[in-house]
């Protein structure tokens, strides 16, 4: 049968053959396109178990799929990234639909941590954290590598661990140079730094804030971070 409106079908599921024969009959041309089945053959508890066992992901079990989070999600609505749908990520994780979840590796890290979802969820799901935890699971499976967001998280933790208080300027500087963000050129950075330091809003370098007795706490914090999975 010729397939109309191919644009409605998920690209990965369209199989086009140069030559196709059915029962010895040549059906190439218009007739050579097939749609792969997308029947879900089974549910699995793997993803849910993994996510629910992380500190960040444990509230995933509360979710009843109302869609309030997605309705207000900045990424989904304001930035118009339709594929970024926290409710749907949670559903896929709950049902263990790994094949479908995998497809979202290119977007799942795009959360901007605005926390509107957490503020509004009627069931007390820590949506933003849960999505991060699902992302952590996906990374642990090798479905995605590091992302600008995960590199930022990493740099953030590393920076904070030094004295117990974040040095924003140092963090931004190291991140910007590593990511080669053109918008944040030297002039821009210098102006921002001067302004922030002068108004006393930021203390950097040797002047940065420190937590008293941090050396002792740092060991414990490190241990938790390493033991607690994706944070």
């Amino acid at each position, binding site marked *: 049968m010729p397939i109309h409106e191919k644009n409605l079908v998920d690209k990965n599921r369209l199989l086009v053959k140069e030559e196709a024969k059915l029962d010895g009959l040549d059906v190439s041309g218009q007739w050579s396109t097939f749609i792969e089945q997308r029947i879900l053959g089974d549910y699995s508890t793997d993803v849910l178990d993994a996510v629910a066992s992380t500190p960040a992901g444990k509230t995933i079990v509360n979710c*009843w799929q109302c869609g309030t989070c997605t309705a207000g999600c900045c990424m*989904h609505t304001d930035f118009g990234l339709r594929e970024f749908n926290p409710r749907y990520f949670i559903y896929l994780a709950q049902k263990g639909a790994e094949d479908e979840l995998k497809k979202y590796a290119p977007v799942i890290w795009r959360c901007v941590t605005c926390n509107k979802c957490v503020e509004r969820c009627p069931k007390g799901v820590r949506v933003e954290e849960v999505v991060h935890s699902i992302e952590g699971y996906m990374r642990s499976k090798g479905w995605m590598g590091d992302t600008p967001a995960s590199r930022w998280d990493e740099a953030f933790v590393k920076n904070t661990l030094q004295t117990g208080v974040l040095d924003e300027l140092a963090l931004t500087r190291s991140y910007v140079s590593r990511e080669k963000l053109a918008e944040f050129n030297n002039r821009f950075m210098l102006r921002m730094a001067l302004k922030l330091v002068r108004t006393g809003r930021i203390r950097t370098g040797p002047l940065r804030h420190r937590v008293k007795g941090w050396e002792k706490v740092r060991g414990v914090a490190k241990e938790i971070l390493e033991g607690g999975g994706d944070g």
Partner: protein
Amino acid sequence: MSSPRILVVGGGPAGLSAACDLAEAGANVVLVEEEGFLGGTPKKLHYSLIAPDLKPVQEVLDPLVRRVEQSGVEVMLNSEVASFKGSGDGFHVEVRRKGGPLESHVFDSVIAATGFAHWDPHKKYEYGYGVYPDVLDFKDFERMLSEDNLRRPSNGETPKRIAWLLCVGSRDKQVGKFYCCRMGCVVSIKQAMEVRQKHPEIDTYVYYMDIRTYGFWEDKVYWRSMEEFNVKFVRGRIGSINRGEDGRLVAMAEDTILQRPTEVPFDMLVLATGMEASRGTVEFAKLAGLELEEHGFIKPLQSDSLPVHTTVEGIFVAGTATGPKAIPDSVSEGSAAAMKALNFARRKAVAERQQTR
């Protein structure tokens, strides 16, 4: 043996039912109601048609009110229980009519039928109640329907498209209300049917997570609303309301079936506000030493098998004072509590007679 003396607090469907059954069974009944009329919250807030048969509220409740008035119940309107003390010979109660002196009574048993109140949607600020005039709650909209005055408060025009949002102040951890209001679905759908009946040109949409029209409400209300009235249903909960162009409201929601964000303009939004224990319920419980359960309603002695007993012997409870329910359930519980209260009073009288002999 003299007639048992029984106090009924609250003149809504539950209290009315209890009072007239007791009077017809020969008890001396005092019915204390804080408002100046009988009929309870449906009368106070001017409800329109009553589900599931879509009868006007007067047709449902007025016969009950008349029966109470004709059965010899002593009705005390504009009155409140000022003090309450239980002791061996009965419950010593002082009642005050507004502006009047205290009246002292002694009762053998007591029924609390102090009812519910609507949850206040101001607390859910993202829906803009109190900010956008076209965002209404249940009581506003019921009143509008009963007065046959369906207009947008913002500009007085007839709306072209109305949305309902279910579960506002129910099933929501953010506002500390964990339970289902039981009435919100059926009432919203009923309202949409009422709108479509009178104004077929108005388009109606109900935003839901699940539809809970249990029992006969399923076909009599939910199915009928789709099949006969073409009420439409969107599966998704509105995240917030924004102001749109030309002063319309924009419902920001995810249509979870379409799996995409929707920003659809409406002329009016009705919030299906939940039920909570009325102030009168909480105050009377405190006065009489009744325990409350975890959602703030009066706690039945056993929620499964003793639903109209309270944690205090001789005090019974009926209707929405123990949790959300519909009118027929409230009326049945009124009768059930009447039976229990009467039996309690009779047993007490027999015991007293045996003692004095």
